[in-house]
């Protein structure tokens, strides 16, 4: 690790903003529709439910992790299984981030192509996002995190404008029957939807950059709570405007909401606000994911520098993102797999690591005694 990277320090707000961005960017993709598909009119209840479960699980994770604070997941892998453990954990995280990055890159590019650059080839559209990822990797994670802390309030403002702008279309009867597709669908089948918080895995890769555990705890909790509120509001507003099953049709729910903003002839076409905040959020999200990928690879294989990895990994992600034959397959890879089974890696695997590391520590203490 070079000196500059070792000195990197993330502030509390920067960490909270980072959590908000990685958890909330999906609002601009398919999240509100996914909630409507999973629970019908009760999509917003499902959103609250999975948020509460996530906060509980995260509280449990922090209790397990507290003893190992300062070590990221790869460090813990090494602690448990030496070099083999480090490489094993590292490869899982690398695989996970490559999957997330390539799927989301393709999804954002397809969205951009549909709503704005309709006649440009998908590879050309992807290059804009890829360029942002490459440049951010060269400037480093610290600059990116600082930039994100400035961008998140602006993105949030744009988001709030859209949510309020469609106020005239709110209709409470659209979220009736209150429990939509039923209790089983919300409270039992809905549990796997905690995968919408899968990106929380990233915060355990950044812990060495926050000096105190309490600061880490506080900022991540703030981030998760604000994100839960944003996610729930997006789902609720979407369902108040688009009744089920109409709500399951829209490919980009928030874009469709923004298109409805129309107050006389002086305030129309809210999608221009959407396009701006959406593109900024997409670039920041992809850049953060890409940086975590590079740092993980560097750490897994104990490399001195990560910059030579930038272009090869950019090419890999770009190529993988173009592999799905169509938009529907990409959406399936996101909502059908990542947002359904992602919790196995982000929560299950992380908890397993914490437990194993805890057992190892206890064993070592016992041996020392």
């Amino acid at each position, binding site marked *: 690790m070079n000196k500059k990277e070792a000195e990197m320090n993330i502030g509390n707000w920067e960490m909270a903003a980072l959590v908000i961005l990685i958890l909330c960017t999906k609002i601009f993709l398919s999240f509100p529709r996914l909630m409507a598909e999973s629970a*019908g*009119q009760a999509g917003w209840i499902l959103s609250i439910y999975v948020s509460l479960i996530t906060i509980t699980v995260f509280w449990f994770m922090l209790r397990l992790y507290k003893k190992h604070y300062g070590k990221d997941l790869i460090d813990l892998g090494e602690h448990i299984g030496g070099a083999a453990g480090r490489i094993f954990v590292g490869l899982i995280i690398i695989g996970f981030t490559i999957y997330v990055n390539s799927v989301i890159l393709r999804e954002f590019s397809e969205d951009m192509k*549909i*709503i704005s650059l*309709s*006649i440009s080839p998908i590879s050309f559209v992807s290059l804009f996002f890829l360029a942002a990822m490459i440049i951010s990797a060269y400037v480093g994670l610290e600059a990116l995190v600082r930039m994100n802390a400035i961008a998140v309030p602006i993105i949030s403002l744009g988001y709030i404008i859209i949510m309020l702008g469609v106020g005239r*279309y709110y*209709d*409470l*009867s659209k979220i*009736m*029957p*209150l*429990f*939509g*597709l*039923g*209790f089983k669908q919300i409270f039992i089948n809905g549990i796997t939807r905690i995968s919408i918080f899968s990106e929380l895995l990233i915060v355990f890769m950044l812990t060495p950059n926050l000096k105190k555990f309490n600061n880490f705890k506080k900022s991540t909790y703030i981030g998760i709570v604000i994100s839960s509120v944003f996610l729930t509001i997006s789902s609720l507003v979407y369902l108040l405007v*688009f*009744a*089920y*099953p*109409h709500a399951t*049709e829209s490919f980009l729910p928030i874009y*469709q909401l923004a*298109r*409805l903003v*129309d107050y006389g*002839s002086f305030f*129309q076409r809210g999608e221009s606000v959407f396009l701006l905040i959406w593109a900024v959020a997409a670039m920041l999200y992809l850049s953060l994911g890409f940086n975590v990928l590079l740092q993980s690879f560097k750490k897994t294989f104990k490399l001195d520098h990560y910059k030579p990895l930038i272009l090869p990994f950019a090419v890999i992600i770009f190529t993988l993102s173009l592999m799905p034959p169509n938009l529907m397959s990409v959406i399936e890879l996101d909502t059908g797999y990542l947002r359904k089974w992602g919790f196995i890696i982000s929560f299950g695997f992380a908890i397993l690591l914490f437990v194993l590391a805890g057992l190892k520590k206890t064993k070592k203490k016992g041996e020392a005694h």
Partner: protein
Amino acid sequence: MKKTTILFLIALISNILFSGCYDRIEIDDQAYVMAIGLDKGKTNFLRMTLQIAVPSASGKSSLGSEEENGEGEGPKSVTTTTVETPAIYSGFNMVNTYISKRLNFSHTKALIFSSELAKEGISEYINAFYRGREFRNTMFIGVSTDSAEDYIRKINYVLDVNPSKFYEETFYSYLYTSFNANTHFFNFYSQAKCSCSSPVATLVGVDKIGSLNAYSIEYSTFMEKERENYLEGDFTAGNIPKEYKNKTSMMGLAVFNGAKMVGELDGQETRYHLMLTGEYNYSYLTVPDPESEGSFILLNVKQSRPPRHSVKMMGDTPIINARIFLEADILSIQSGINYEHASKMHKLEISTEEFLEKDMMMLLQKISKDYRVDIVGFGKKIKGKFMTLDKWTEFDWKKKYPNADFDLVVDLKIRRPGLIIKTSPYES
């Protein structure tokens, strides 16, 4: 230094590459479609009419639509074309071959279907428009009593410089006439897919008569309502007794079951529909004088509070209670009777309430028993009593609604008498 040079070069090259100059589409390279009309085709499935704005002519004198209506002299603010086509987008392709600009629909304001097509069902066309990125959810949906092509071609923008403004102003006129409704594409689409209500579209049409002397009372709907003469809303579009340069009109609603048209409402019924849904803003209302037969009183009626509805089930019969809250200002008393006085005013309030209740009951019976659709959205009230969607679907509101019994109360309060607080008789 080397780094700065590289950055400078990157910025310079990006400027050239990313500005997209080589395949740019300028604003004046596009043909902005203002209205789309869809009729049943003679040689193919569809006859599609596109009314395209001619921005260079906007703001100049002698504005009009087509020469055939006798008004067009000089530059036209719109041009109209019609094609026979198998489907909507294929029609756009065909039009693009012979107009000099590329069609653009991002400013389309109105989508007009002929009633013939609407009665067969318009789901496939609605889906195509909803899927298209350029079409806006805020464009208006209309149904032409005859041909959509005729309607679009006969529009004459007498007062408007901008055709887009014409559509906005006329479709939003329900806010002060109450003779049409908010029929945004989004509302239509959303209600057509709802299990608790049904959509409506604004009724438009071409005038059936050339001059007022040719008008016959058969064009009015007043006789169905057991009245002796017609009031201002007893017409559907195209049947209004009028003479004007613009030979088209807009009055009433087309009633849909899903995406299939099942009936029409005239202007008066549309007003009651708005009062029942709570979308009513204000308008002038003519009511019979309770003390002087053959005389009328004119009121400016507003909705003072949103209507209150409740639905209860008595076996399989829905019992629907609706309460409408209105307030009114007196505009004119033809008989000269002193209705401004408190005792008389109450009598006028009661008689107006009875008049409105009778008409509204007729409307409710018509839409529930004849058309068998819930355009008011009473189903929304009872939907909340079900816990899950399965139970609601099993209940099947649309099947039960036609059996509904209605209990309607209109609560009208006269607030102000205008500038005159007492009517004194004329001396002769």
